[in-house]
């Protein structure tokens, strides 16, 4: 702890020296961002009838579910009293953006994501309920809710219901991640956070990261299944990634240019911080590697006529860089916002422990666990018809 004091440059209010929100609070918006973005991609097919992305539709929904199930974990690890977190359901303080977390989360998980997955898979669930045995069979039979009616009428109803849920789901996804942006954007005490652009920037970077992760998973899973990648699908998804990225980048540049231009009291402090302690995470990782480079790679694929192998390589590279860049963006907002003093007279450091409740190890676990859950979901609710089983 004393190390922290030595890391202080200039003056920090004594209570500010130790950071309050750790890497876990970086991970939470990153994960809910993936959820919101993956869902938006899925809704492209359902609501806007973009047929080309159909191969990724179910994968996007399952990805969203896997990450959403893990989303509360970093928060629980962070809370001083996780056993009291249900108080948010008992006495939510309506003036606090954070208070809506419990309700928005439950709403989105149950009323949107779970329902949509159930409705889309129902026909298959009924078939699996008859074919499968053992615990898996039990699971499918329970999922049918006792009704194996998959007549044309039933399916039509399912499709309609699914459509309505998706339409409701889009603003719900915006809310699920937008409120996180508002949590930061509404803190007048912190000029790095306090901007009306914050929820919008969060949302667009969420869409970018969600689309990127689904694209990446689709390509990886196709490799694992030894199936060819549907290039029309990959091209379309990559195109949407490109567009979303352009908007996201423009918004972030708008924020930056506005700050530099107005150069208010906080600017000197923030500018210094970005050029010193935040230089690598912000300039190098977020902007250069995580935004400009993937935008450039994607632009190449739009402008040049490349053969599919090369296009795929560029898509995968861009997607990986994007995920790193969006993580860095969350890092720079959350950690960056706490590195400078609210007196604008000094800076502190963030000591990331390896173990411990808020250390690197549990943080990595929260990022890896959703992939494990996704693997399970892919087994239970396979998104694609397997014509010939992979060897």
């Amino acid at each position, binding site marked *: *702890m004393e190390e*922290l*004091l030595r890391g202080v440059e*200039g*003056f*920090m*209010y*004594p*209570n*500010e*020296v*130790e950071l*309050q*929100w750790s890497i876990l609070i970086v991970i939470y918006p990153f994960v809910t961002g993936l959820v919101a973005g993956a869902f938006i991609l899925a809704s492209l097919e359902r609501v806007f009838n973009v047929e080309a992305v159909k191969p990724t539709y179910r994968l996007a929904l399952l990805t969203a579910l896997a990450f959403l199930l893990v989303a509360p974990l970093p928060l629980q690890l*962070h*809370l*001083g*009293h*996780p*056993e*009291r*977190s*249900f*108080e*948010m359901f*008992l*006495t*939510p*303080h309506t*003036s*606090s*953006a*954070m*208070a809506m*977390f419990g309700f928005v989360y439950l709403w989105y998980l*149950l009323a949107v994501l*779970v329902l949509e997955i*159930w409705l889309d898979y129902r026909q298959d669930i009924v078939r699996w309920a008859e074919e499968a045995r053992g615990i898996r069979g039990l*699971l499918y039979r*329970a*999922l049918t*809710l006792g009704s194996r009616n998959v007549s044309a009428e039933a399916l039509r109803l399912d499709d309609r219901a699914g459509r309505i849920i998706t339409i409701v789901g889009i603003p719900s996804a915006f809310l699920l991640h937008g409120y996180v942006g508002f*949590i930061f954007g*509404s*803190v*007048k*005490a*912190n000029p790095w956070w306090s901007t009306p652009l914050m929820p919008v920037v969060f949302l667009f970077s969420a869409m970018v990261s969600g689309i990127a992760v689904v694209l990446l998973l689709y390509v990886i899973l196709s490799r694992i299944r030894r199936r060819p990648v549907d290039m029309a699908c990959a091209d379309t998804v990559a195109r949407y990634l490109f567009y979303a990225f352009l908007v996201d980048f423009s918004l972030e540049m708008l924020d930056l240019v506005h700050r530099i231009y107005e150069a208010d009291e906080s600017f000197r402090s923030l500018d210094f911080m970005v050029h010193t302690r935040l230089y690598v995470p912000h300039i190098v990782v977020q902007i250069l590697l995580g935004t400009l480079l993937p935008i450039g790679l994607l632009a190449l694929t739009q402008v040049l006529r490349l053969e599919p192998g090369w296009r795929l390589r560029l898509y995968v590279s861009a997607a990986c860089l994007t995920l790193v860049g969006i993580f860095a963006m969350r890092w720079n907002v959350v950690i960056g916002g*706490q590195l400078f*003093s*609210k*007196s*604008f*007279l*000094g800076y502190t450091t963030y000591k990331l422990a390896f173990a411990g409740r808020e250390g690197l190890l549990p943080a990595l676990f929260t990022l890896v666990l959703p992939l494990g859950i996704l693997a399970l979901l892919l087994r239970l609710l396979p998104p694609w018809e397997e014509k010939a089983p992979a060897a």
Partner: protein
Amino acid sequence: MKRNRREFLQHGGVLLLLTGASSLAWEHVAAGEPEAAPGYDETAHWWAMAIDIERCIGCGNCVRACKAENDVPLEPFYFRTWVERYAVPAGDPEHPAAESPNGGFDGFPPAAPGEGIKRFYVPKLCNHCAHSPCVQVCPVGATFETRDGLVLVDKNYCLGCRYCVQACPYGCRFIDPRTRTVDKCTLCAHRLAKGLTTACCEACPTGARRLGDLKDRKDPIHRFLAQRPVHVLKPHLATGAKVYYAGLDGSVR
């Protein structure tokens, strides 16, 4: 849908378990209100503090008294009140230097000599804002403003999410590592309820810190506010801060 049902059951089961496990603590929380200070009428007071910069000598008595009175951890990261020393170069008021070694707990070492540098002490504490941003952001209602104008923390209800610490513009909140909940200056509510002054005001040898009751017409704070040039910290944030500084230099953050 089994997953749905399973989740409901799981959530319900966990809820029941937690309720059972923490029933002891919860009984205390759920029960009525123990009478700690019978005869103290919240609605008869509206507390504030008057700080006279021209009297503060940076002795650190207030910091020590507060830590003793309120059982605050002694490490240099946890302060309900602290003292800062400013050094403002005469020609450059926009670039002051400030320091607060261990919050002023051990006083201050002699300052390095320098020409044309204005130095002074600034005691800081929770401003018990009338429009408190920390109360606004608490997700569950674990921090609140009382009817006598104090912003307090409910240690039995606080989740330790630290949103209020982020929202406070003055840096007056911290997490108590022992309870893992938020802690901050309570304006010695336990002393005010018994007609005593705060520990920091009790210990201040020069009268730089003085508790004031804005509802008491006879309180000297009214004359203080009427006659001295008075500032609050960060007025542009409109927090309704109730700690009034007389003689505060414009460079103070």
